[in-house]
């Protein structure tokens, strides 16, 4: 099932914009947007970038006018190309090394775009009553450390008395989980016959990582966020000090060869940070909170509306990746998980090296006293649920083509200063006035940035061969501005459609 679906790629380019999921961000492990076409599609959600929208509509028109697109006239065996099929399939050995170690992948394929790996469905999956397994990874292939002392490793690859254990043991149990995991990863690379010596070839190398640990000083300045930049400097400094302390010239060779230069160690830390999965596992009767590096499962990208999740199957000690129950999957859909719920963009940037313009948990700090009526705002945008779990009522009250509401609007609903006082109705004129005040505040925020969103976009387009970290940094500030702009638009819509 992994091998045959991409054999029939035609030259035509079909662009399937996933309209059923307006709040959908696919983020690559290394960059936020997978390819040029997908970038256009992603940007096409925003009405601001008109040129990209025009490009996307051109593509749609061309695909609609091509004769063979009518499904009945196509032979059933030929598979329609999807956005995923433009990406390159992963190396065959990528599957083989796992298959012989009883990793199983069902109905998915790993594809590699210019921004790194992603997992895509290779066939349609009807909505099922129960969660459906798409990947099984045995514990023996993972690298895990217990989150608290005593340090336990499953599988225990560190021999008794090895000095790497002393290094791991010297870390701070509360905060240094990434350093521990990096040590373990480097040690696994040094172990003969360890699976990670093979799998490591498919991890992003140092120049493909977007983690800001690997960023240069000018990259950090490009963030236009002093707090984040100083945090990243501290993190980098912490990793460097750790390396200098434990990899000084007098250490034995078996430690020294793990990371001869600090770059390799910082790379390992960035891998550990961006690919760590924290899970509670159960092995026999032993319940453990683990920091785990899970091969294959770490190729899943993040989405705020994920269609997959992780599940620990304790019976045979496997990590299962399962499709959400009741989720319909189309062939070529990207399989995504939610890395962290409730994190702001700067935390995502700090740990994973990506950000999103539609993060529903992003926060804008308003300092003025203006407030809008919460319930009116929610009803205008057809948002339901409690504040912790706002969601857009797609298809019930609004028509399907209406895809203005995305994660940014949910973020606005959370972050805008609002009032709500029982049944007291809002007065429209006062509401409009408050909305305008908020818009002005947002404009002030935008004016504080040295560049505008359009300029950022142009900078991005002008240098396709830029460093990954620089690209990520520019995207981060771009996404911040896009969010603020989206809030301004949402307030516009609110003023128009407020109920009387």
């Amino acid at each position, binding site marked *: 099932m992994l091998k045959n679906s991409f054999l029939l790629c035609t030259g035509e380019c079909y662009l399937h914009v996933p309209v059923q999921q307006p709040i959908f961000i696919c983020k690559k492990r290394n960059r936020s947007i997978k390819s040029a076409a997908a970038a256009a599609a992603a940007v096409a959600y925003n009405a601001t970038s008109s040129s990209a929208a025009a490009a996307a509509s051109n593509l749609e028109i061309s695909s609609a006018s091509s004769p063979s697109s009518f499904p009945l006239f196509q032979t059933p065996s030929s598979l329609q190309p999807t956005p995923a099929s433009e990406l390159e399939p992963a190396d065959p050995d990528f599957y083989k090394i796992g298959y012989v170690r009883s990793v199983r992948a069902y109905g998915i394929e790993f594809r590699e775009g210019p921004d790194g790996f992603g997992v895509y469905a290779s066939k349609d999956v009807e909505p099922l009553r129960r969660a459906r397994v798409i990947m099984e990874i045995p514990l023996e292939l993972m690298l895990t450390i217990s989150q608290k002392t005593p340090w336990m490793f499953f599988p225990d690859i560190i021999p008794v008395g090895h000095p790497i254990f002393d290094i791991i043991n010297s870390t701070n149990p509360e905060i240094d989980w990434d350093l521990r995991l990096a040590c373990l990863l480097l040690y696994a690379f040094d172990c003969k016959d360890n699976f990670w010596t093979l799998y490591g*070839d498919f991890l992003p190398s140092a120049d493909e990582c977007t983690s800001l640990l690997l960023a240069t000083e000018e990259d950090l300045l490009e963030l236009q966020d002093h707090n984040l930049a100083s945090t990243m400097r501290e993190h980098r400094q912490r990793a460097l000090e750790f390396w200098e302390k434990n990899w000084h010239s007098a250490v034995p060779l078996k430690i020294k060869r793990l990371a001869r230069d600090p770059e390799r160690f910082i790379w390992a830390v960035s891998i550990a940070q961006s690919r760590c999965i924290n899970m509670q596992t159960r092995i026999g009767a032993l319940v453990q909170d683990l920091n785990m590096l899970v091969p294959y499962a770490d190729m899943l990208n993040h989405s705020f509306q994920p269609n997959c999740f992780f599940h620990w199957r304790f019976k045979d000690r496997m990590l299962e990746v399962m499709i959400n129950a009741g989720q319909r999957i189309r062939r070529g859909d990207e399989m995504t998980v939610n890395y962290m719920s409730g994190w702001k963009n700067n935390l995502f940037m700090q740990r994973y090296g990506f950000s999103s313009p539609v993060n529903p948990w992003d926060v804008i700090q308003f300092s003025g006293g203006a407030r809008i009526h919460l319930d009116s705002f929610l009803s205008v945008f057809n948002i339901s649920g409690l504040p912790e779990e706002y969601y857009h009522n797609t298809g019930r009250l609004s028509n399907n083509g209406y895809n203005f509401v995305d994660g940014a609007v949910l973020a606005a609903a959370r972050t805008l200063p609002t009032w709500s006082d029982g049944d007291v109705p809002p007065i429209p004129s006062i509401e409009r006035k408050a909305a305008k005040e908020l818009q002005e505040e947002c404009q002030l925020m935008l004016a504080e940035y040295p560049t505008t969103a359009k300029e950022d976009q142009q900078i991005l387009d002008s240098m396709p061969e830029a460093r990954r970290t620089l690209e990520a940094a520019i995207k981060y500030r771009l996404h911040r501005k896009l969010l603020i702009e989206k809030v301004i638009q949402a307030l516009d819509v609110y003023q128009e459609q407020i109920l009387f």
Partner: protein
Amino acid sequence: MVSSISPAWVLCQDNGISRRIVSVDGSVAKRLHLQGSKTSFARAFVTSIWQLKVGLHHSSGNVRLLPCIKCENSNKEGSSFEQVSVEPPPYHSYLDSTSGQLEPASGARASIPGQEFWPEGTASRVRAARAPEPMGASTTSPSYGQNPGSRRKKYKASVASSETSETSGVPDIPDDVLEEPKELLSEYVVYQSEPEEENLSHYEMDKKIGRPHPFIDPKAKKPVEEPLTSEELWWNWRKPEKEQWSRWQRRRPDVETVFLKAMAETGQIKLYGDHPTMTETSLYRARRHIYKEERLKAEQERLERIGPLAYYSEWVKAWKRDTSREAVQKHFEETGEDENTQLIEMFTHQTDREYRIMMGTDVRIRRDPLAMRMREDQIKEIWGGDPVYPTINYIQDPDAVIDFRGPDFHEPTPDMLAYLKEHGKIISREELEMKLAKEKTEELEMTDMDEAMAQAVDIGENDDEGEESDDGEEEKISRNWSILKSNPELRKSKGKPKNNNLSLEEAIDDSENLTDFLMDFEEDE
């Protein structure tokens, strides 16, 4: 029909257990079945027998067992068998009301239940086993942790571009260092990569496949000769030479053998081979007996020569008086106390310890130095291991069916009377009467009470009977022998039951026991 079906079959290995012909798509098999049920599909296939086992349906959760179809060929070119016309069954399949589907009328009628009825975990295992192996060959080779990210496509492109510009050869890892041969040629396991070519004979092939075949290979089969009658068998039976056909024929490690081996190890004697032969054993037994007899006789002579008082004063340290015959006689003349009275008088001065030493019951005296020096396993060979936790040489295998027949069970029963006579266990009436008459005369002669008294005092090794009872008790110890070894005073604390049910051999061997020999041996040292 054949051409439409043939691409649909793939040969797929089902979990390594059996090879089946499995339909990829269940609908094809269904169509085949429906078509076959309409026409008589006896002439469908060219090959002689096609047995289709239809695998489980893939996509639908409901698993059906599609009918087994057996086709006979009609052309007689390979007709090694007689064409039998069997009345075909009235139906090939029937609609099972339980499953609601067509079920085969022959073979396994119970269909495999649906996936939702499988036990927990079965579905995932089946799914994992069915996952096809990934195909395709990689063009890159692993860097084994040295170069992370080296097998990404993007990485490769950038490296290739830089390589063309720099023209610096990256040292290529040879292609044999790939993942695949490493897996196949493990250090310990050599996997059989391709099936072994085997040329089986017709019979073996039949047997392997499971076609009907005779029980015995007709080539190896020999005609059965006319069997002898049981009477002839009885009289023609010959004892097999040197054939151990029961483990009970094994020579058991008896006391003599073990002792001989221990003596040979310590260099006291020399054995011809590893194990003492029967001759050596019996020689040893006889010699031991003779030594014992000699010693007992010498003791008796000494007693008679120096008199009982002098003889036993060895064990009465407190008796300082002169014990020579003259002194005894003198004392008798002075006080009128005869020898017996003096002896009793002397024994009143004997301490408890001296008494025990004299009777041979003092544990502090090492009586059998060799047995004390024997290794643990040798002792266990004699006494067996602990029966609760059998260690070594546990002869009585608890699961064994006891074969009471010895290797000589077919030999004629020995003449017991002659045997007993020869060994002096039985005597004729005349002899008995002669002895009785002699004893009567002896009794008349035996007026000397002193001598009788002297005889009555018993030192341990003087009496065969006492030794025999010792021996019997020692042989009876079958459990916790190691405790008894470490503190042997426990042995004496028990009563001395006389075992009356001695077998014949034990009765023969009763006089030759371990301790006696060892005491002789000690003296020789």
